């Protein structure tokens, strides 16, 4: 028998690791951008030419990692109008179907993404700028990100099948740009 509370506390720990990692990648990307702009005007002789390239790699990694959080919070943008109208038990099984498709798609992306990574390593692919960045590191974001999403979708599927609670698991639009833990500011 699976120990759900232990699993949940592990997931909580895992969430916080994802969160901090993504925050760090984002800050780093902003710093690189600032460095590029200031560098271009302050020390044009030493200005870096590949800042935007690095920003792309950092941001894509951050986006791919954080996407699994969106699965967990039901934050992926979706038209849930029909789901709201359907009887709750029907909606449940539509959600099961959605999870299955998601697992197949994300699983496929893990598979093909890995093959892209493999190819890139095999042919020593580097970016065509003067940075000559090893492209497999960039490509790896895809299988890793979709892999994390696959895990979350599997967890969700199990929830819908084995631990369904009509009260808390109603489908509904979650605004994806809500920020946690911060109060609504007051007017003065």
């Amino acid at each position, binding site marked *: 028998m699976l120990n759900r509370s232990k699993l949940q506390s592990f997931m909580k720990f895992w969430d916080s690791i994802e*969160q*901090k990692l*993504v*925050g*760090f990648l*984002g*800050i780093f*990307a*902003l710093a690189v*951008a*600032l460095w*590029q*702009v200031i560098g271009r005007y302050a020390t044009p002789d030493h200005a870096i030419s590949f800042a*935007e*390239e690095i*920003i*792309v790699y950092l*941001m*894509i990694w*951050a*986006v*791919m990692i*954080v*996407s699994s959080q*969106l699965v967990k919070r039901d*934050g*992926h*943008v*979706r*038209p*849930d*109008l*029909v*789901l709201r109208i359907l009887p709750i038990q029907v909606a449940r099984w*539509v*959600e099961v179907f*959605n999870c299955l*498709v*998601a697992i197949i*798609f994300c699983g*496929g*992306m893990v598979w*093909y*993404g890995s*093959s*892209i990574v493999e190819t890139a390593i095999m042919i020593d692919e580097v970016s065509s700028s003067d940075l000559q960045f090893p492209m497999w590191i*960039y490509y790896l974001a*895809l299988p890793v990100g979709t892999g994390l999403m696959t895990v979350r979708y599997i967890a969700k599927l199990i929830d819908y099948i084995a631990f369904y609670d009509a009260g808390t698991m109603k489908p509904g*639009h979650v*605004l*994806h*740009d809500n*920020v*946690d*833990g*911060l109060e*609504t*500011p007051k*007017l*003065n």
Partner: protein
Amino acid sequence: MGYLFFALFFGLLAAGMPIFLVLGTCAAALFFASGHELVGVAQTICNDMNSSTLMALPLFVMASAFMRSGGIATALVNLAGVWLGGVRGSLGLITVVSCTLFAAICGSSVATALAMGSILVPAMIERGYPRSFALGVVGASGTIGIVVPPSLALLLYGIVTEQSVPRLFLAGILPGLLQAVVFFLWVMYYARKHNFPIEPKRPVAERVQMTIRGLPSLIVPVVVLVGIYGGFVTVTEAAALAAITSLLVSLLFYKGFRWTKTLDVVADGIRSAAAIMLIVATALALGHWVTESGIPEKLVQFTVDHEFSRWQFLLAINVLLLVIGCFLEVIATLLLIMPLLAPVLKPLGIDPVHFSIIFTHNMEIGLIHPPVGLNLFVLSTIVAAPISEVIKGVFPFLVLLIICLGIITYVPELTMWLPNYVFGPATH
């Protein structure tokens, strides 16, 4: 294959599947059906995401998240309030002005309605404004920001249709101002008619002091616009600077969050961006297949065969957008529709820059169009009001919006004059 495509597309949408999955699954299915290796879907996603222009998107979204949690949004409202005291219905006018300012950075009208609504709607109700009016003015004013630069919708439109982003940004200014002025005048008229309360006029010294305190909240739009149009930075760099300045202004000046929370705020911003980025990636992959499938040619052929005129075509688009506006945000819709539509514009003699503003404006109407629109849902959840009350409040603005749309559609100069004046006429 076209029918298979549309059946799959709308079937999955109806099942409430996340948009990125709908687009990705369609892309994969059709890639496979036309005899391509499936690895191409993954490779295309990697290739299309590897774009520095595209990175402006998560950076702008981050900037708007910082503004919301960092106290800049509140500062904007206060700044607008300082100078509108003493005018009847000033809170309504403040809403129009501060929504325009906030949306000028935020770029999403749903997010604007949420951020501004949670501050301003309770304030208006407290001061005795009718609840339906409070909801209506917030819901409608948020739609201004989508056309005023910088706009996420226009940025993405530029990426999908390969148009110059600075040109699109300029195109949005006059139509956005037109809408703001029309709303402003309407609120003044309505407030007088219904005898809305007057906010106290503050003494000049206090006004100056509060203005100074409010000024840093305007740094972000200034940095972005001066940066881009002064030719100092690229759009992507401008987006990064917007994020950096809003982070610094929040941390050091308005202190909306403590610096120890910085990593979390950044991560939350990226999470908001990720929801859009995944859709972008799969939309571009689908667009890639659509080009190859010949569907755009068939669509053009269809409109030519049925002798659709330009305005009939635009009307058909309008209806389509109203329907989609029931359940989707502007950006998701844009990514859903534009890959199909972009190749059709030129053959029909429609200027893509002019169309960008018509399209976003149409979308906004779809969002607040009764009986269902996403913005209506968002507003009703802010104060737990029934949808019908929101609709009642939004209705007059809806009429004004439709009038604005007519002007924008039939007076192309309003859209085209500024970009053509600054950049010279486009040649394609």
